[in-house]
């Protein structure tokens, strides 16, 4: 089934693993959970020999174990879970994995935007049916959250702080009373949440101050802050994992040399250090330089090599992809990259040679084209 989808949701993609874990899981499960909390953790963080499983479960989310544990127990409690962090730190991925492991359904998602209305959270009406048959449960279109309540599963709310405050507050009653009233109907006008219902929301910490959460809503969520990955080892692991996934999805048979991965990670680490010491916004790149951005750069370079190159990832292509992805503002970003290329990459290429030389050339060329 996953072959027919461009991007299969986690429960489809890892259906085998989930089936297996469910079959061996004899620990008590909260509500209608498909897996026990410990097995959810194993599914997300991978298995160890001491777990005694006769099949290896690979790690899918890379980060501190405590965050995952705190997230799981929050979902087993009465409160919603709010994953908060910088863009590209893997909040949505963690949310998807959690929903997939707990209820085998990670697709009940509301995307928070400036245009999100209360209807998107509660329900709306099929106008034709209302005209034809009048208002009834049949002509009601439940929102993903309402569906999650009815089924007793996890509903997801992406980018909660992008939605306006009054829309956010529609969640308050859902999270505390656990039902939605449909005043338009005379009978059967309350949808009660079944056991197992909870909400995983994500919020971007860079959006703070745009639509701040009300304290009433804050109280109903447990916050788990996902920090930016700073360990080079962990970051390499994430980039490798996600890239392998992308290559598989695009059916590309291409090897990413470890030295090139090192070049990419080091460049991002240097750019982050430069951004940290910048005194004004003009002196740092607009990009958040997140791990997701690195994956984007690598994906772009791989696709370019596959379809326009020699089916081999070359440092020049990687450099050009990096410049292309990060140069968003002219002239500010270009000036920063230019300075970076001359001040950091050039000495490094002289010192370490190897792929750095090609990387230097490729970057120079890309910068020249953009300037």
């Amino acid at each position: 089934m996953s072959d027919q989808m461009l991007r299969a949701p986690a429960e489809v993609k890892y259906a085998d693993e989930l089936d297996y874990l469910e079959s061996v899981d004899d620990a008590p499960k909260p509500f209608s959970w498909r897996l026990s909390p410990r097995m959810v953790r194993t599914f997300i963080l991978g298995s160890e020999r001491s777990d005694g499983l006769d099949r290896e479960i690979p790690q899918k989310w890379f980060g501190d174990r405590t965050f995952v544990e705190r997230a799981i127990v929050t979902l087993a409690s009465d409160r919603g879970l709010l994953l908060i962090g910088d863009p590209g730190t893997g909040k949505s991925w963690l949310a998807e994995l959690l929903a997939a492991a707990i209820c085998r359904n990670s697709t009940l998602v509301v995307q928070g935007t400036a245009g999100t209305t209360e209807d998107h959270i509660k329900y709306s009406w099929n106008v034709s049916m209302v005209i034809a048959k009048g208002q009834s449960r049949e002509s009601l279109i439940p929102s993903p959250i309402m569906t999650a309540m009815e089924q007793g599963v996890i509903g997801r709310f992406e980018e909660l702080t992008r939605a306006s405050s009054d829309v956010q507050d529609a969640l308050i009653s859902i999270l505390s009373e656990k039902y939605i009233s449909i005043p338009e109907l005379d009978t059967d006008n309350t949808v009660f949440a079944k056991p197992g219902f909870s909400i995983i929301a994500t919020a971007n910490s860079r959006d703070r101050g745009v639509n701040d959460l009300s304290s009433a809503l804050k109280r109903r969520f447990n916050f788990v802050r996902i920090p930016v990955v700073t360990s080079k080892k962990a970051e390499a692991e994430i980039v490798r994992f996600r890239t392998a996934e992308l290559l598989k999805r695009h059916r590309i048979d291409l090897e990413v040399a470890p030295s090139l991965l090192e070049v990419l990670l080091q460049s991002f680490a240097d750019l982050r250090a430069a951004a940290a010491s910048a005194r004004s916004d003009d002196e740092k790149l607009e990009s958040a330089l997140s791990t997701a951005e690195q994956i984007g750069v690598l994906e772009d370079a791989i696709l370019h090599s596959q379809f326009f190159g020699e089916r081999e990832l070359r440092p020049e292509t990687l450099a050009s992809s990096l410049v292309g992805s990060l140069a968003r503002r002219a002239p500010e970003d270009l000036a920063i990259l230019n300075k970076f290329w001359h001040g950091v990459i050039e000495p490094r290429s002289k010192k370490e040679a190897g792929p750095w030389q090609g990387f230097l050339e490729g970057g120079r060329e890309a910068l020249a084209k953009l300037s």
Partner: protein
Amino acid sequence: MTKPATDDDMTNRTATHGPAADRVPGLDAAAGPFGRLREQLLGAAERFGAGPLSDILAGIVEDVDRALREPLEIFPVCHHSPSSATAMVRRLREKRPKVIYLELCEDLRPLLDELRNCTLPVALQSFASEIDGFPESWAPLSVIAPITEASAEYQAISYALTTSGVELVLVDRSTDHVFQWEPRDADKDDSDSGDSSGSADDEAALHGDAVGVEIGDLRPRFAELEEHLLHHGKVRHWSEWWDQYVEQPLVDADYDTYRQVMVLIGSLFRRLRPEGSARTRVDEDRERYMWTRIREHLASSGADPADCLYVCGAFHAASRVAEFGLHGATGTFEISPRTATKWQYGLIPSSHSAIEAQFGLAPGSVSIAAATWAKALQRSGIRPFRLTASAPRKARVKPTKPTVTVTDRLSQFLTTAPTPHGIDEQELLGWCVDIVRLARKNGYAASTADAIAVYETSVLLAGIRGRRRPTPYDFQDAAVTCIEKDTVPGRRDIARLCEILLGGDRVGKVGYDALPPLARDVLDRLRPLCLDLKKRTKQRALLDLDAEPHLRPCSDLLWILRRLLPHGVAEPIMGSRRLGERAIQESWDLAIGRNMRAIVELGYEGVTVEQVLEQRLRKAVHAPDATAAGALAAVEDSLLYLDSRRFTNELGARAVELLSAERTVDDAPEVLRRARMLLAYYQTTEPELPEWLKAFVTAGYAHYCTLLPTAFTDDATGARQVAAMLGFLLGMENLALSLGCDHTQLELAVQQSHPEDPAKVALLWAAQTQLGLLPLDELRRRCDDLLDNPLVVPSFPLYLSGFVQALEPVPSLAPLVVEILSKAFARLPDTVLLPWLPKLIGTLKDHAAEMVPVLVREAGRTFPATLRALDDWTPPWSAAPAASAPSARATDAGPAGDLLAEHPATCDAVAALLGLPPDWPTPSSPASKANPLLAEHPATAEAVAALLT
């Protein structure tokens, strides 16, 4: 130890470590109490594949066997471990040893008696500021050994000091050896001083940058092992792992189990750590040191080893050095003598967070250990030993002679799952309520619902981590999950609040009697302020010195403390102390209790603060890099803080020496400023200048005259320095001449000066004008010429800079400076003027006090005050010159002028020779203008005449 460990030594020493050496002589592999366990472990090793594993597994059992069979009973401990402390109490009560050997620096022994006057935690400190035998860059040296109540060592110390007939012997290397054994080429800061620098917290910084030593450091020095244990223990920090897997299971264990398990862990960590590291070498040398000391003591005192107890870290209990044991090798290790460094000893306050920061423990772990200790005491009902100020030494109770039989307790311990010892329900509930209350106090919008959520989450977290009951760390995670939102409203976040809740950060106090004399003296002398200075909060002291003159000595002391101690200990809010000033009211913020360490360390330098200040000032003026300006500053300090004329004169005399010996004039501005200030002070307060100051002025006059020509031409000397020299020479000339200096010396010096730098040229002109060598009109004409010359215009601002600097030595030049500045602004092109303006502003800003008032006053006099007046205003220098007055020199009247006027022949002849017309101006008699005035108003003159006749 007489020689540093070499590779050869290492070979010899490691030769004793091989598997063969691990076997206890005469002990068959299958025999002994641990035979079965050994076999089991070897079997397990074989299943994993033979190799080093079987050596390690067999080795650790043998280490346990060996340590337990040692005739001198070894008590293995781990630092800040409640289970060690409870086992120690039980053992001491049972065995009642006569001698206790303790792994602690031997030279700290005298301090232990003072512990009874302290509230723990405190740290024993050894401090040396004057070092001999170590690299200079290491100074000052400081070693601290913190002591907490929940520790085995404190129990042992308390027992020994409260029971009569018990001797406490510290056997570890002295603090001097701690540094002797440090690698010389390494940076001192990289040693095991922990990561205290990273902590910004006040309490965490209590130990300063001292090197920490502690008893029973037990941690795998093998990073992969630690990582593995943490990962599989599902814990984040080593302290958490230790608490869960060793501390809690052992806290109620019997003594034999405790001892065997601790030695086993010590042995395991020892065998798994990398061989041959510098740290291993030091540890082994320490073991040799300790055993050597123990044997020496036993030999000299004749004590029966059966009546003794050796308390050391579990790591050292599993030692494999040849010198281990009473029957170990002798004569192979020699203790090197201490260096000539003078060590001072004292007690300083410590805190749980300072200990955690120093030794890299998890935040809150020492507090949790203290809470566990309290709980263990309550549960088991054992009575701990405690030092109190007044407790007499109790008679020694007759010991029950234990029979030395070793039975295997390890097998059972290792094969039984630990009994869960998590927090009980009531305790957890209490914490949940308390954390919400604390969070609310700290600005969080937390409610009872949060308390319920924290409780539920703690239980769930414990479940997911495979624990039957939540641990304090689970509770902390749960509280963070449920209460922490996107921002921290106050100063402390939830994690910190949890630490406070779980026992809080306890800060120790050093009792009055345990303080060094200086600290006691300070507290005594500040008593009239009626403040509790031992409190850790800031205290505000209000001193009305007019109404309460008896507080004046307190004020004097506070000013000295402010001078000697780091910022923040004693800070004046109102009132100041400057030369010639006395405040009538002062108010101070005092943080004496919080900074007791600084005061204790001050106590290592002297008996009173005055003595310390005197020593420091004397040291400063005799340092190889001392300067005359520094010596004058010391004189000022001496006048301000020490009422000692003799000492001030001594410092002043040193200032004269330093000035005469100086070859540069870099400090001239500072010397001038300070000398002027001191002169003003003495002239207003004393009938006569002190001898040293007279000498300083005359020496300075001669010194600066000598250096002036060089300073004018030397590129390295700036205009500011030259201006200051001229300021000294011209400003103090009258005094210098009255003291016997010669004016010609200055004139010659000025004439010998030939600067090229425009700023210095301007300064020279100013000096010449002041000395009468260059008329003012001539100077004005020269400036105008410069402005007229297009080739010089670009450098004109540099001349201007020189004139601005000249305001200080020649203040009478102010009108001319205003004039030149006005002309420059009027005539200089923008391309020249604008780049120079920032520099002018910078110069004026830097020297605002000296230059700006003069300049502004003069400008106010020159320019019109109103806009309307500006329309009709003509600059005085542009106004039509009055009838050209004959030059001052030419019109000087006097006997010489009169003589020449009466006999003009000679001058006429000279004029004819020079080709000039013999046209002599008539000397104007000063009386010429006065005569008509007197004729008109004769009354005054007649009155004077009447008086005189």
